[in-house]
């Protein structure tokens, strides 16, 4: 193991402060819910074409069937998606069509719990070192450890993006820079042993490639620990500054390995595979304990919650089971920067890739926009008299009036991909799709910073996303 280089970071980005309503430390384990809502549709990429798309495996169960925790209830080995597991044991009471929180409609399997939490029995391999890469891949696929992010894990099946053998670097993304998200930190502290073993498993499944760990520089204890626990030549730790969006695959790979992912592409195109901490821990559970991926750590936080904390939740737990809003606010599924607002907490549940759920208070009216000294305000500029060390105010306010672009250039300065965000957005708005492509619209990682910093409150990222959708539509 080696710690590589000094502190690395990237051009652009923004250091968010510490916001009020952040999850308090120590992980809470939430009991299995009475009712689980499991959408089948997943985000993925079309193989070989690298176009982000949706895949929906076929349901294997019917209404009335009894299922066990961890049982596969839907799979499609041809499509680019991971099998879907029952996350509680009980009876399938309905399979209905619903709007997926991130758009498009999806089949949702609804399971009513029998309160026993019976798990399926799978083989466990206390000694995994003898297993071949193919066997490991198959186990990981069947337990749903594949594709926690957008990208599938390579396997002997068709559900991986990467061709076996084309991967040279396994990158463990252990840095979370988005506001209100720090579930991985808890996981690293609590499940350190599993993490270390999980990394070994993932590596072995990829044919013993190099491992790179990107981690916040402010966790020296963990860095040291990794150093003592993985003393081999194949593991490199990269301490990183906690600037958003360092955890984005494209940005991470560029920072630590100097690999540039093509616009709209995926890391496997440059020979790298990015997994997060959750995935490494899940790999341990899958291989050594025979437990499929049915629960995950979610940062449940925000100012409108009484008890912000990191929670271990079953996938499919309806949000209103564990979210108690203390006052009127909006709940955002999937992180404040790129998530979606949830209107009805009863019908939306924790998804397999939900890292964060944030409930923010609405702002209140102030007499003037300029009288406030702003000791606790977060801004890209320094127009507020921020006192370092205080937590920052977080609400879902726009904090300004909609104005025409004043060409301040902030969106240029923060863009981690070095794009010209408002120029692209303008072209996208006017349907000049050729110009959009020329400006590399596909390189946008949708980090949301351009919308965040804009003093004219232009939803720059949204316009870019709409542009991408128009292009996708045009290309069929």
């Amino acid at each position, binding site marked *: 193991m080696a710690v590589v280089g000094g502190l690395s970071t990237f051009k652009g980005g923004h250091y968010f402060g510490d916001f009020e309503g952040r999850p308090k430390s120590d992980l809470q384990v939430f009991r299995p819910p009475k009712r689980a809502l499991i959408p089948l549709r997943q985000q993925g990429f079309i193989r070989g074409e690298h176009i982000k798309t949706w895949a929906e495996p076929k349901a294997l169960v019917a209404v009335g069937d009894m299922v066990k925790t961890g049982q596969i209830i839907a799979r499609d080995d041809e499509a680019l998606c991971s099998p879907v597991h029952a996350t509680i044991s009980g009876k399938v009471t309905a399979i209905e069509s619903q709007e997926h929180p991130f758009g498009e409609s999806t089949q949702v399997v609804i399971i009513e719990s029998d309160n026993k939490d019976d798990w399926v029995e799978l083989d466990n391999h206390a000694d995994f070192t003898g297993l071949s890469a193919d066997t490991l891949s198959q186990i990981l696929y069947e337990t749903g450890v594949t594709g926690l992010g957008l990208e599938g894990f390579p396997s002997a099946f068709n559900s991986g993006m990467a061709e076996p053998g084309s991967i040279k670097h396994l990158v463990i993304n252990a840095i979370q820079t988005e506001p209100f998200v720090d579930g991985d930190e808890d996981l690293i502290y609590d499940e350190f042993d599993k993490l270390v073993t999980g990394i070994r498993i993932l590596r072995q499944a990829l044919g013993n490639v190099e491992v790179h760990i990107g981690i916040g520089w402010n966790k020296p204890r963990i860095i040291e620990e990794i150093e003592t626990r993985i003393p081999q030549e194949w593991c490199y730790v990269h301490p990183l500054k906690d600037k958003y969006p360092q955890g984005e695959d494209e940005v991470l790979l560029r920072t630590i390995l100097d690999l*540039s992912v093509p616009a709209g592409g995926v890391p496997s195109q440059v020979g790298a595979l990015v997994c997060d901490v959750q995935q490494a821990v899940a790999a341990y559970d899958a291989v050594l304990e025979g437990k499929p991926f049915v629960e995950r750590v979610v940062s449940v936080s925000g100012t409108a919650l009484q008890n912000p904390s990191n929670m271990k939740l079953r996938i499919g737990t309806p949000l209103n089971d564990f979210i108690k809003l203390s006052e009127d606010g909006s709940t955002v599924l999937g992180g404040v920067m*790129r998530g979606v607002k949830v209107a009805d907490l009863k019908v939306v549940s924790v998804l397999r890739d939900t890292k964060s759920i944030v409930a923010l208070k609405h702002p209140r009216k102030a007499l003037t926009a300029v009288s406030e000294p702003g000791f606790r305000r977060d801004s*890209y500029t320094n127009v507020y008299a921020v006192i370092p060390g205080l937590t920052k105010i*977080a609400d879902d306010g726009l904090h300004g009036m909609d104005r025409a672009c004043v060409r301040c250039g902030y969106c240029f300065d923060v863009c981690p991909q070095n794009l010209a965000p408002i120029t692209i957005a303008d072209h996208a708005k006017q349907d000049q799709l050729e110009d959009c492509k020329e400006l*590399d619209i596909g390189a946008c990682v949708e980090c949301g910073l351009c919308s965040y910093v804009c003093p*004219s409150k232009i939803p720059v990222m949204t316009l870019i996303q709409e542009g991408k959708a128009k292009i996708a539509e045009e290309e069929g």
Partner: protein
Amino acid sequence: MKRLQDLHHNLADKIDNGLHSLEEGLRKKGGFVGRFDVIVEGVRDAVLGGTNKTVKQAPYLRDSIGMQRYMIMPIVVCIPLLLMAIYLYGWRTMVVVGVTYAFGVLAELIFVMVRKHEITEGVLVTCMLYALFLPPTIPLWMVAVGIVFAVVVGKEIFGGTGYNIFNVAIVGRAFLLISFPVELTTQWLEPLTFAASSDSLSWLGGFLHFASSPDAATTATPLQLMKFEGEVTPFLDLFLGIRAGSLGESSMLLMLIGTAILVGSKIADWRLTVVMMLSIGAFGQFFNLLIPDVFRGDGLFMMMTGGAFYAALLHITDPVTSCMSQKGKIILAILVGLLTVLIRNLTGYNEGVTFAILIGNMFVPLLDRMTLPKSFAGEAKT
């Protein structure tokens, strides 16, 4: 503390509701009176503007800065300059500023009412920058003509703040420079602090006077003294700003403080202010060494005289009319610095910086196109 906050929010709610119903009422009346609704809306949005709007699309967390906060910063920086101007030239300065605001805002309001677009904060900045860049003796009717020209021709015919190509305040000043060159370039006053007086309060300078006495001798600016008489103004006078010149442009000390505020808060990009000053200094020095007969005064002198620093701090940094990319900003700043030095020394206009900025503004669209940032994404492998 919590009680105080609640009080504040409730008061804000009440005032806003009041204004809102007033606006609705006007709108219902329709006709000519109904047109005034945009003014009430302007007061609500642009003047007060402590909004409680919520975000509609991701990201649901947004920067605390809004346009009001953004636009107030240059005005904050101008307040010490304004005080300095009063100190140097008396309270007439306030009248000049007052007239500018009255006519500038009026022109904006008329357009807002006719074109039904919303009032924007920009005009408040424009007026301040325009007023402080005028000579102390300027006739008030000229002040009014200039600012109306600036708002109408410089901004509104382009479509309002954000769409104008030329810096609005500079358009007004350039218009005056061309139309009334005598008033704009020859009638400089000695600062009132020069007046020998036995009064024990004489250190208050212009704060004791409305204006210089009408028969006060006109003098020349340091640039003119240098150009026509080869006379060097002492460094300290230049630094503190005790010299003839436009109302707010003279004090380098206050400019430095202003730079700290504006550049420090990221409202002005250092790539514009600092690079433009360095460019003026470097080119000034270079040409001075090369052709000393034509290019009088060394680099430092070039930087400290005329409106160079004022324009570098407040005019070139106008976001609407400068480049968006970082590279573009640097090129623009170097270009404007070079033009300033050339125009000052090779043409009859001592205040070269005004035209330098106008010419610079013309290059912005081209520079923007040329300096588009290059995406970090890799080439697609086939």
